[in-house]
C-alpha cells in the first residue's frame, strides 16, 4: 500500500517539480561527463609521449569537491517540496499514519525522482563526455574520433555520490517532519504573510563591514606611518590618504546618523557609498604598487584584496536591501508613478518579495559574481600558462643553471653536461641541434651584485646566439666590431624597451666600450632560461668580446629528431638530478626541462584547472537560477490568490500576463544585472593587474571571445530557466 502511495506521489510530483528534475539531470550529466575522463576504462589516444594518470586523479578530486555544492541544492529543493506538501503530511498524520512513516514515504518519493534524474543525467552525460574528450584531445594536439562507451566505474561513482547526497538530505527531512507539529503543518498555508517584516541580515552585514573597516583603518594608518614619503607621486599620496580617510568616514557616519537620529536607509546609503570608495582606494594599492614600485609586501596586497572583497560583498548586500526602499521612494514621489493601471500591484509584489528575501538575493548575487569571474578567469589562467609553456618548452631538452647562491668564482658552473650525450647515444635518440653555451657578465664587478631589482644583465656570444636562432628557425644576425645588440622577453613592454635603449646607446664591459648596433633589439622568443634572474633583457656581444668576460651561467639546449618518450624523459631527469641537483653544494642551481614532461604536466594541470573552474561556474549558475526559479514557484499559491483578486477587480488576462512577465523579469534580472556589474568591476581590475601577461600570452581578442562565450552560456541558461519558470508560474496562477 505504501509503495503504491510512493509511486503515485512521485508520478504526480514529476509535473510539479520539473525544474528540480531538470536541474538535477543537468548536474548529473555534467558530473558524469567531467568525471568520465578519470575512468580507468578511459583510454584516449594521446600518444606515448604523454602520461594520463596525473590528469585523471586530479580531475576526480576537483569534480567531487565542486559537486558537494550540489548537496546544498538538493537540500534546498527538498525543503521546497516539504513546504508544498505540508498539508498533505498533516492529513496523513491525522488519519493515523506515524510521522516516521510519512518521513520515509517522502524520502522514497524524492529518491525516485532523484534516480530518474540520475539515469537521464548519465544518458545525457555520455553525449557531454564526447565534448570533453574532444576538448582534451585538442589540448594534446591529437585528432578526435567519436567513441560511445559507458564507463562502469564512473557510472558507479555518479550513482553512489548522488544517492549518498539524497540520503544525507533525506535524513534531515525525515527529522524535520518528525519534529514539526501537526497543527503547524495544517495551518501553514493559511498563515498570513509573516513576511512584511524586514530581515535582520543587513544589520549583521553592516556590523561585519564596520569591523573590517576598523581593521582597514588601522592598516591604512600603519602603512602610512611606515611607508609614506612626501616625494611620492600624487596618485600614491591620494591612495595613502584615501585608505585612512574613507574608512574613518565609514566609521563616523553611523555615529553621525545616531546623533541626528537618521533613518536606517540614510545610514545604509552612506555606508554603501563608503564601501565603493573604500573598494576603489584599496584596489588601487596593487595597481599603484606595480606602477610606482612601492615597497609594499605581498602580505599587504593580500590584505587589501581582502578589504576589496569585503567592501564589494557589503556593497551587494546593501544595494539589494536598498532597492526596495528606492522603489518605495520613487513610488511615493508622484501619483503619476503610482497610479498608471496596475503599477501599484506590481510595486507591492516586488517590494514585499524583496523585503523578505533580500538575504537570499544577496547570496545569489554574490554566487553569480563568483561564477562569472570563474568563467572569465579560467581561460585567462590557462591561456597564460599555455602561452608560457610555448616559451618554456621551446627545446626538447633544456639544461639551465643559476649562480644566485654562488659566492666564489671558482664555483661557477663550467660543465658541459656530458651525461645527456651518453644517455641519448645509449637510447639511440638522434639530435638535430645541440648547443652548449655560456652567459657572461659584462663587468666582473657585478658578480657580487645580488639585489633583486638591480640584478646584472648577462650577455651571450654572437655565435651561440645565432646557433639558438638557427635551432628555432629564425634568421641569423650579424654584429660589427665593438657593437652589441639586445634580446627581449615577450613580457617587457615597448615603453620599457624604448626607454632602456635610449639610455644605453653604449655600455662599458671588461673588454672595453661597446656601442648599440643599428638593429638594436630582437624579440623572437628564445626561452626564459637564456636570461639572468629577474631580468627581461639579454645582451648579444661579439665572440671576441665574450672571451674576455666572466662566464657565470652554463646552459645546454637540444632538439631531437623525434619526440623523447615520457618514460625516457623521466629516466633522464632522474639521472641528471642525481648528478646535478637543484641546489648543488657549490651553490649552483641546475635545472633540466623536457618539452615532453612539461607539455604533459602543463596540459594536464591546465585541463584540470579549466575543467574544474568551468564546471564549478556552471554548477554555481545553475544553483542560483534554480533557487531564483523555485522561490517564485514556491509562492505560486499566494500569487494565485493575488492574481485572482485582480481578475475579480476586472483586470484583463492580457494585463495579468504582462504583470507576470514583468515580475519574473525583475526577479531574475535584478540579481543578474547587479552580479554582472560587480563582476565587470572585478574582471576589469583583474585584467588591469595582469594586462602585461594577457597581451603577451593570450591576446585581448581571445579574452574578449571568452567573455562573450561566458555571457552566451549565462544567457542560454537564463533563457532556459526563465522560460520554464514562466510557463509553470503562469500555469499555476491561471489554474
Amino acid at each position, binding site marked *: 500500500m505504501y509503495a503504491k502511495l510512493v509511486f503515485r506521489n512521485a508520478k504526480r510530483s514529476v509535473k510539479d517539480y520539473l525544474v528540480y528534475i531538470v536541474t538535477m539531470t543537468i548536474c548529473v550529466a555534467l558530473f558524469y561527463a567531467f568525471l568520465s575522463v578519470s575512468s580507468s576504462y578511459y583510454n584516449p589516444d594521446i600518444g606515448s609521449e604523454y602520461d594520463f594518470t596525473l590528469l585523471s586523479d586530479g580531475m576526480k578530486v576537483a569534480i567531487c569537491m565542486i559537486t558537494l555544492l550540489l548537496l546544498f541544492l538538493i537540500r534546498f529543493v527538498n525543503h521546497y517540496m516539504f513546504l508544498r506538501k505540508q498539508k498533505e503530511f498533516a492529513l496523513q498524520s491525522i488519519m493515523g499514519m506515524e510521522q516516521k512513516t510519512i518521513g520515509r514515504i517522502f524520502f522514497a518519493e524524492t529518491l525516485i525522482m532523484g534516480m530518474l534524474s540520475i539515469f537521464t543525467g548519465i544518458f545525457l552525460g555520455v553525449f557531454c563526455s564526447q565534448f570533453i574528450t574532444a576538448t582534451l584531445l585538442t589540448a594534446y594536439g591529437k585528432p578526435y574520433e567519436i567513441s560511445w562507451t559507458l564507463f562502469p566505474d564512473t557510472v558507479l561513482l555518479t550513482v553512489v555520490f548522488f544517492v549518498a547526497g539524497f540520503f544525507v538530505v533525506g535524513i534531515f527531512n525525515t527529522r524535520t517532519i518528525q519534529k514539526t507539529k501537526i497543527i503547524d503543518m495544517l495551518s501553514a498555508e493559511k498563515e498570513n504573510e509573516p513576511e512584511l517584516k524586514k530581515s535582520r541580515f543587513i544589520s549583521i552585514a553592516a556590523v561585519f563591514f564596520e569591523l573590517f573597516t576598523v581593521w582597514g583603518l588601522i592598516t591604512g594608518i600603519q602603512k602610512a606611518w611606515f611607508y609614506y614619503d612626501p616625494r611620492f607621486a600624487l596618485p600614491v599620496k591620494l591612495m595613502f590618504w584615501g585608505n585612512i580617510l574613507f574608512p574613518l568616514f565609514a566609521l563616523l557616519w553611523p555615529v553621525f546618523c545616531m546623533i541626528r537620529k537618521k533613518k536606517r536607509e540614510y545610514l545604509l546609503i552612506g555606508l554603501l557609498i563608503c564601501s565603493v570608495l573604500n573598494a576603489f582606494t584599496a584596489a588601487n594599492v596593487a595597481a599603484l604598487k606595480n606602477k610606482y614600485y612601492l615597497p609594499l609586501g605581498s602580505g599587504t596586497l593580500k590584505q587589501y584584496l581582502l578589504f576589496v572583497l569585503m567592501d564589494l560583498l557589503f556593497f551587494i548586500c546593501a544595494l539589494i536591501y536598498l532597492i526596495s526602499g528606492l522603489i518605495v521612494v520613487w513610488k511615493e514621489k508622484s*501619483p503619476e508613478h503610482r497610479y498608471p493601471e496596475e503599477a501599484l500591484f506590481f510595486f507591492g509584489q516586488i517590494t514585499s518579495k524583496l523585503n523578505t528575501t533580500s538575504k537570499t538575493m544577496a547570496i545569489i548575487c554574490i554566487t553569480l559574481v563568483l561564477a562569472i569571474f570563474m568563467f572569465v578567469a579560467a581561460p585567462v589562467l590557462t591561456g597564460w600558462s599555455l602561452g608560457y609553456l610555448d616559451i618554456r618548452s621551446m627545446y626538447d631538452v633544456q639544461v639551465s643553471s643559476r649562480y644566485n647562491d654562488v659566492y666564489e668564482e671558482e664555483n661557477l658552473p663550467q660543465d658541459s653536461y656530458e651525461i645527456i650525450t651518453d644517455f641519448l647515444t645509449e637510447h639511440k635518440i638522434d639530435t638535430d641541434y645541440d648547443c652548449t653555451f655560456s652567459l657572461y657578465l659584462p663587468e666582473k664587478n657585478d658578480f657580487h651584485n645580488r639585489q633583486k631589482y638591480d640584478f646584472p644583465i648577462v650577455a651571450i656570444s654572437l655565435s651561440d646566439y645565432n646557433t639558438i636562432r638557427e635551432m628555432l628557425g629564425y634568421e641569423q644576425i650579424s654584429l660589427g666590431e665593438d657593437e652589441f645588440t639586445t634580446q627581449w622577453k615577450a613580457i617587457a613592454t615597448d615603453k620599457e624597451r624604448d626607454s632602456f635603449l635610449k639610455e644605453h646607446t653604449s655600455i662599458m664591459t671588461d673588454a672595453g666600450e661597446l656601442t648599440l648596433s643599428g638593429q638594436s633589439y630582437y624579440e623572437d622568443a628564445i626561452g626564459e632560461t637564456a636570461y639572468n634572474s629577474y631580468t627581461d633583457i639579454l645582451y648579444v656581444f661579439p665572440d671576441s668580446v665574450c672571451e674576455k668576460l666572466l662566464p657565470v651561467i652554463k646552459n645546454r639546449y637540444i632538439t631531437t629528431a623525434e619526440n623523447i618518450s615520457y618514460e625516457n624523459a623521466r629516466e633522464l631527469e632522474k639521472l641528471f638530478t642525481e648528478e646535478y641537483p637543484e641546489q648543488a653544494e657549490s651553490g649552483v642551481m641546475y635545472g633540466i626541462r623536457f618539452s615532453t614532461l612539461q607539455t604533459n604536466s602543463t596540459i594536464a594541470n591546465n585541463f584540470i584547472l579549466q575543467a574544474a573552474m568551468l564546471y564549478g561556474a556552471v554548477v554555481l549558475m545553475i544553483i542560483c537560477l534554480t533557487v531564483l526559479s523555485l522561490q517564485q514557484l514556491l509562492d505560486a499559491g499566494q500569487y494565485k490568490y*493575488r492574481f485572482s483578486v485582480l481578475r475579480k477587480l476586472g483586470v484583463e488576462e492580457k494585463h495579468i500576463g504582462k504583470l507576470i512577465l514583468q515580475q519574473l523579469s525583475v526577479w531574475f534580472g535584478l540579481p543578474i544585472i547587479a552580479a554582472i556589474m560587480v563582476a565587470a568591476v572585478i574582471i576589469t581590475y583583474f585584467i588591469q593587474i595582469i594586462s602585461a601577461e594577457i597581451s603577451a600570452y593570450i591576446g585581448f581578442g581571445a579574452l574578449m571571445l571568452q567573455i562573450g562565450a561566458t555571457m552566451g552560456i549565462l544567457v542560454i541558461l537564463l533563457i532556459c530557466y526563465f522560460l520554464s519558470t514562466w510557463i509553470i508560474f503562469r500555469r499555476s496562477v491561471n489554474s
Partner: protein
Amino acid sequence: MNTILKLEHIQKYYGSEGNITKAIKDISFSVEAGEFLGIMGASGSGKTTLLNCISTIDTVSAGHIFLEGTDITEIKQKSLARFRRENLGFVFQDFNLLDTLTISENIALALAINNVPAGSVEPRVLDMAGKLNINDILNKYPYQVSGGQKQRCACARAMINNPKLLLADEPTGALDSHSSQMLLSTIQSINEQLRATILMVTHDAFTASYASRILFLKDGEIFMELRKGDDGRSAFFDKILNVLTMIGGGQSHVC
C-alpha cells in the same frame, strides 16, 4: 422606478450528458435602481451560482441577464473584464484584499485599473474613506487591521468606481456579531446615502434583515419572495425566520 437588472429564465447546468446537475432550474426576477436585494437559501440552493452568473464570472446555460438594457450573456469574453470593472462592484466573504498593499492602496488600485487620471485618485480615495469611516487606517496593511475594517475597505474599493450594481457574497461570513452589525449599517448607508443598488447573497437571517426585499432560493428555483415594506427590521427578521422554518420543514417532511 427604472429596472437596473433583469434576469429572464436563467438556467445553469453542470456536468455532461447522462449526469447533469441543475444548479439553477429557472429563475427570473428584476432589481430596481437603488434597491437592496437579499438572496437567501441553504447550501446547494444555487445562490452562489446565480451570483457568479450575474457577475459574469460564470456563464449561463440558458436565459438572459440584462444590466441597464445590456445583455451581459452576449458580451464577448474579451470585453468581460472591462465590463466588470466599469459596471460592477464586489464584496467577498474573505475580503480579497491584497496583503502587499496598504488599505488606501487597495482602494486606489480599483481606480488605477480603471485608468482614472493619477491626480484625482487620492482625493477620491480620501472622500470614500471618509464616508465609510476608515480614514485612520488608510496607511496600515490589511494584516494590521480587524476583520470589520478589512471588509469596510473592501466596500470602499467596490464603491469607488460608482458601480451600477454592488454584489456582496456573504459579506459578514467571516466577521463576529459586533463587526457584522457595524458592516451591515455601513452597507445600509451605502444603499441609502450613495443610492447604490445592492445584491447581497447570504444564508444568515440577521444579515438578510437589512435588505429591503429577499428572494429565497430552494433547489435552483425561487421558493418565495419577501418584502420589508413598512415593517421594522425586527418584524422583518421574524418573517424571514418563518420562511426559513418553512423551507426547513420541507426537508423534514421528506423524513
